[in-house]
């Protein structure tokens, strides 16, 4: 019995153009779930991905929050790592060369406590081989900065317009699902000169150990990720893709090629796989392969034809 669709050996074109960056395929490894690629490069060749996004980088090294930093939840998890990272200088010296050598696009996720820190970070990254700067305005695990900017359209606009003149690198603004209106924050990013928007970051949540009557996380609260948030993320990607002209990078609970295709149909130009990597180290590569298989099975020759091809019910 022969299956419908294209023969398995026919090449399908998975490449996409993300604000001027040609990606081999639309799959990026999400920030904070892939380190700097070293551990996963032992598992599969990172050249099979569209790109990798670094752990969030700050100007100075950060210790991060005390443990416990993780709590399992229904179909997801909470984390409160608190941006533990070696700081921009150690990152550029010790990690970026490795990332660049992997043969896929490299994005650096940056976070700051104030606008000056974001300015300094993008200036420092301007003359490096980084392909894309992902500006984290949505980390729920640090006291200062970050989500304070991302929560409102005014905050996003003022921050993005301050950093935009400082670099010619493409800027993707990573948005929080906890803004009053994510369409408004996305529009603010676009009008201030962003090249793309990434959404969604985690949702602030909580888990309580009823035996000790204490929160499970030492930080009391943390960011919820995993398939639990996929429907919310998908709706937001659809909403934002219909609002802005710049490309949308979609993420939130993607575990399979089918999940990824749903985000592409909703309007994402590229997608990120995050928490799935923690359970299945080959998740990013599996998602690439599953997208290709699905395209062959459905006689879809180019992944670009899927982007935004959602047919809404009347």
């Amino acid at each position: 019995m022969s299956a419908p669709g294209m023969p398995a050996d026919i090449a399908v074109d998975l490449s996409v153009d993300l604000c001027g960056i040609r990606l081999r395929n639309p799959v990026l490894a999400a920030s904070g779930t892939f380190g700097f690629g070293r551990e996963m490069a032992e598992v599969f060749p990172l050249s099979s991905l569209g790109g990798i996004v670094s752990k969030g980088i700050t100007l100075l090294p950060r210790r991060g929050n005390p443990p416990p930093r993780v709590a399992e939840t229904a179909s997801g998890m909470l984390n409160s790592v608190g941006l533990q990272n070696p700081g921009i200088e150690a990152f550029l010296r010790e990690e970026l060369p490795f990332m660049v050598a992997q043969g896929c696009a490299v994005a650096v996720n940056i976070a700051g406590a104030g606008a000056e820190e974001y300015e300094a970070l993008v200036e420092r990254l301007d003359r490096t081989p980084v392909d894309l700067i992902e500006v984290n305005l949505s980390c729920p695990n640090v006291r200062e900065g970050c989500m304070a900017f991302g929560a409102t359209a005014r905050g996003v606009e003022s921050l993005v317009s301050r950093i935009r003149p400082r670099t010619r690198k493409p800027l993707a603004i990573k948005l929080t699902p906890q803004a009053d209106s994510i369409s408004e924050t996305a529009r603010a990013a676009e009008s201030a000169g962003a090249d793309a928007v990434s959404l969604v970051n985690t949702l602030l949540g909580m888990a309580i150990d009823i035996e000790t009557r204490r929160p499970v996380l030492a930080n009391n609260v943390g960011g919820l990720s995993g398939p639990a948030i996929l429907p919310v993320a998908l709706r937001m990607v659809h909403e934002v893709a219909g609002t802005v002209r710049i490309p949308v990078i979609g993420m939130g609970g993607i575990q399979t090629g089918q999940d990824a295709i749903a985000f592409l149909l909703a309007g994402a130009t590229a997608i990120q796989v995050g928490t799935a990597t923690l359970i299945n180290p080959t998740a990013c590569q599996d998602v690439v392969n599953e997208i290709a298989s699905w395209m062959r099975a459905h006689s879809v020759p180019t992944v670009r034809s899927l982007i935004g091809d959602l047919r809404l019910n009347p």
Partner: protein
Amino acid sequence: MNAEGEGVSGMANENGDRFHTDAVPREAPILSCRELLPGLMLYRIQDPFLASCARPGQFVNLKTPDGFLRRPISLCRIRPGEGAVDIGIRALGAGTRALCRMGCGERIDWIGPLGRGFLLPPRSNQGTSDDADRPDRPLLLAVGGGIGIFPLLGLLEEARARGMGTLSVLGFRDPSQAFLLREFREISDRSLFASDTGGLDHHGNAVEAVRQLLSDPSVRQAVGKGGLRMAACGPHPMMKAVARLAEDLGIPCQVSLEQRMGCGTGVCLVCACEVRRKNPEGGPATDYVRCCREGPVFDAREVVWE
């Protein structure tokens, strides 16, 4: 595919020991299972690759039939000849309860070996397991409590295979909660089992039993000749007390720490353990390192105990 663990502690790689890790998911069949206590299972699982390269103190990360994240489980016995390893699982939450319901023939989805295990001195040129009576062979004292005893069984086996003398002290809340005593007796030249409620060798906790064992004249004599090192795995207060005792006595000690884990592979940074590190600018400094990658076994002197 395989990584060589880079040393972070003062004791790391002193004899060229390497820890291979592998994070590619594999399915492995359960060969046998044994209920040690209600809700405490010992499984033998077939995985020739894992059995060929894993070291005591390393762990595997198991998918659960019920639960989102994998569950890290330390290796108990490593049986390269049989292409299998033993792991012990206690039913604590929904995920481990579901794992404990698995039976023979079922397949476990796991990644491993992961992390850095225990370091042992190299097998001495003259030393073989045959000359167990040599008075100057180095000794290993393994101190365990509760389900922390599992990795120590494999460690004692390797120590004996390297020609070391083996001592073990195990602590349990109650004799009815004790398990694997026969196995520990067999692999140890001297063993001392402690129970908080009496009924075993020593009435009291494991740390008191360690003091008692170390005050024994024949043990002191052996320690004086061949040298002693300690390894501990168990409840946090026990390990903290063992670490303090070892430091007071000037005995090198390794501890296997536990922390809530995410990936087990080193990418998510949630399993932070606070350790003292060499500060390039001088002065003492502590840092969070990954239990899953730089640990779970650490030199006790570098651990910051709560």
